[in-house]
């Protein structure tokens, strides 16, 4: 078994994704990014938009210099598409562990041992990643280093030489057009999860009680675990309350329904609008904020049993600070 157009050593999409991640970032075949990442790839993360595999190589080197023992075991790959059409797509969930032993973008080494999740949406064809959306749990990283995301965002702006010069977080204005334009696949599981989030974002919070397992285990941004319908309600209400009129959009939906696995769904979504309510992000600042979110859900016999949601709190605070001081 192999994937048409791909190196025959990969037996399927999950194998390719797990394999190249291990090769590049753990075994240090960083030069292999020239092969595994398209020359003109766009990697969007909430913190910034990186263009080209040279940019990715530079960023990778900087990360490995600061966190040399970093490990990235892959927890899941939720995928869709067809090799023949060039539409293969993977939503990859990783658990990253690393020790902050060297100076770098996070400042002087703190010795902090971190564990956080990453969700990476990659479009792949011909053995290469050619379009990417990546959300790293920056909130978890900075908290485990003993800082809070707002203070870190302020420091980051200062380290990057002020509001004018600093690296600008992702917004629709500085995003680059995607070459992967498919919106996923069509499955009951994917549609169900998309419907749940749409209704929750429409303030129909009661759907949580009906659809989340009483023992649902939830992993929210900042490395914050939560439990059951109550935990889910608190999280989603807190987010929505900070951006009550922002536009919620689901950009990509994947569902995987396989024997011997829970039904799983991966969504990529955004919330774009004014920070004009009291909620998770404190006092309303009226800043215009763009939030890129990726979430995975697993459904069992008693409803949504696991949910993993990531957005980048630091990038949100950075947008607020850049506009409001």
């Amino acid at each position, binding site marked *: 078994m192999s994937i048409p157009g791909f190196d025959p050593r990969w037996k399927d999409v*999950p194998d390719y994704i797990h394999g190249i991640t291990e090769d590049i970032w753990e075994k240090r075949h960083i030069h292999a990014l020239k092969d595994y990442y398209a020359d003109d790839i766009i990697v969007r993360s909430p913190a910034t938009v990186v263009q080209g595999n040279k940019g990715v190589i530079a960023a990778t080197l900087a990360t490995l210099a600061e966190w040399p023992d970093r*490990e990235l*075991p892959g*927890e899941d790959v939720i995928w869709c598409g067809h090799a023949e059409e060039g539409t293969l797509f993977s939503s990859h969930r990783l*658990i990253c562990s690393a020790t902050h032993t060297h100076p770098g973008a996070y400042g002087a080494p703190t010795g902090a041992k971190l564990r956080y999740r990453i969700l990476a949406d990659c479009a792949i064809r011909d053995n290469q990643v050619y379009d990417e959306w990546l959300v790293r749990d920056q909130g978890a990283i900075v908290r485990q280093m003993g800082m809070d995301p707002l203070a870190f965002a302020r420091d980051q702006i200062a380290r990057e030489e002020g509001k004018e010069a600093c690296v600008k977080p992702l917004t629709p204005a500085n995003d680059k057009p995607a070459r992967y334009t498919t919106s996923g696949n069509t499955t009951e599981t994917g549609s169900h999860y998309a419907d749940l989030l749409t209704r929750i974002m429409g303030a129909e919070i009661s759907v949580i009680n009906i659809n989340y397992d*009483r*023992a649902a285990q939830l992993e929210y941004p900042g490395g914050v675990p939560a439990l059951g319908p109550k935990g889910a309600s608190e999280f989603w209400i807190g987010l929505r309350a900070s951006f009550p009129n922002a536009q919620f959009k689901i950009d990509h939906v994947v569902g995987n329904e396989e024997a011997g*696995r*829970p039904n799983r769904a991966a969504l990529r979504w955004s919330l774009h609008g004014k920070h004009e309510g009291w909620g998770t992000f404190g006092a309303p600042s009226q800043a215009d904020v763009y939030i890129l979110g990726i979430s995975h859900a697993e459904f069992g*016999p008693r409803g949504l049993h696991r949910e993993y949601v990531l957005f980048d709190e630091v990038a949100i605070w950075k947008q607020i600070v850049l506009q409001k001081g």
Partner: protein
Amino acid sequence: MPPHNEDGEKFEGFSQRWKDFPDYILGITHEIWESRGLSTLNHYYADDVIMRFPDGLLRGNQTVINGTMATIVEFPDRQLLGEDVIWSGDGKGSYLSSHRIITTGTHLVDGVFGKATGKKFRIRVIADCAAKNDTIYDEWLIRDYGGMVRQLGFEPHDFARSLIEAEGGLENCRKPFHPSHDVDGGYHGTGNANAWGERYANILTRIMDKDFDLIAREYDRACISELPGSRTVVSHHDIDAFWIGLRSSFPSAKFEIHHQIGREDPMMPPRAAIRWSLTGKHDGWGTYGRPTGAEVHIMGLTHAEFGPFGPPGGTVRREYVLLDEVSIWKQIHMHTGAVG
């Protein structure tokens, strides 16, 4: 037509209100402990039920009712969220449920844990219950007592000492469970023959035979293990460290598997539930510190979920290990007399 379990086996002898055996287990747990239908224990628990906890054996549903009331008083907001029911049946109306629960609560009232602290806890419990005719008649239950005492601000070894003292000293204190105190509760099943149960039993047996390098092959790199002391670890290194640390404190103890279940259910990964024990001398350096020669019995309940990653045949993706550190320390302190 009587209701059927998911695998088609008839579900007979139980009230019609339960759609299958997991539904019964989840339902009565909620009814008894959360809806406060404590008196329903008279119905759902046999008069002469035998309940084995790592900290001792209880007999009869009245004892269970009294113990439950004490817990509810100290933690009035306690919740019991049923995570999974891994079960087997003997085809003759007797079932064994290995029920994994997340329990949460707030220490709001003075009690076993001292003055109320307002601290919250969240731990796991696994309860192996034998049931027939709508009634639980035999049970093995392990709470992550180590996780609970840590979250309430204590250390298991200190807490075990204070328990001995509070219970009237070495002579009078409540004795942790040992097979020599066991009483036949009537359930003699050993589970089922499903391949996933067999595989996990084999993994644990080989680990206990000190074949630790199999962890790198049989566990996924991203395996999450939920360990005693409410510790969540990820990947081979820390999983390995847990099992080596345990075995190395009791290197010559006898490892036994008493019950094994494997299941493949819709919308669930293949999974296994094993009840095991380690019985013997505390004669090595390890997780339990300096060897003391104490005779220790460790009750263990573990669940595993398998996934598709790694070598062909897949690997363990999640593991839940329950043993009671406080009862282990209590047995050690009772031997050394190092109390007070």
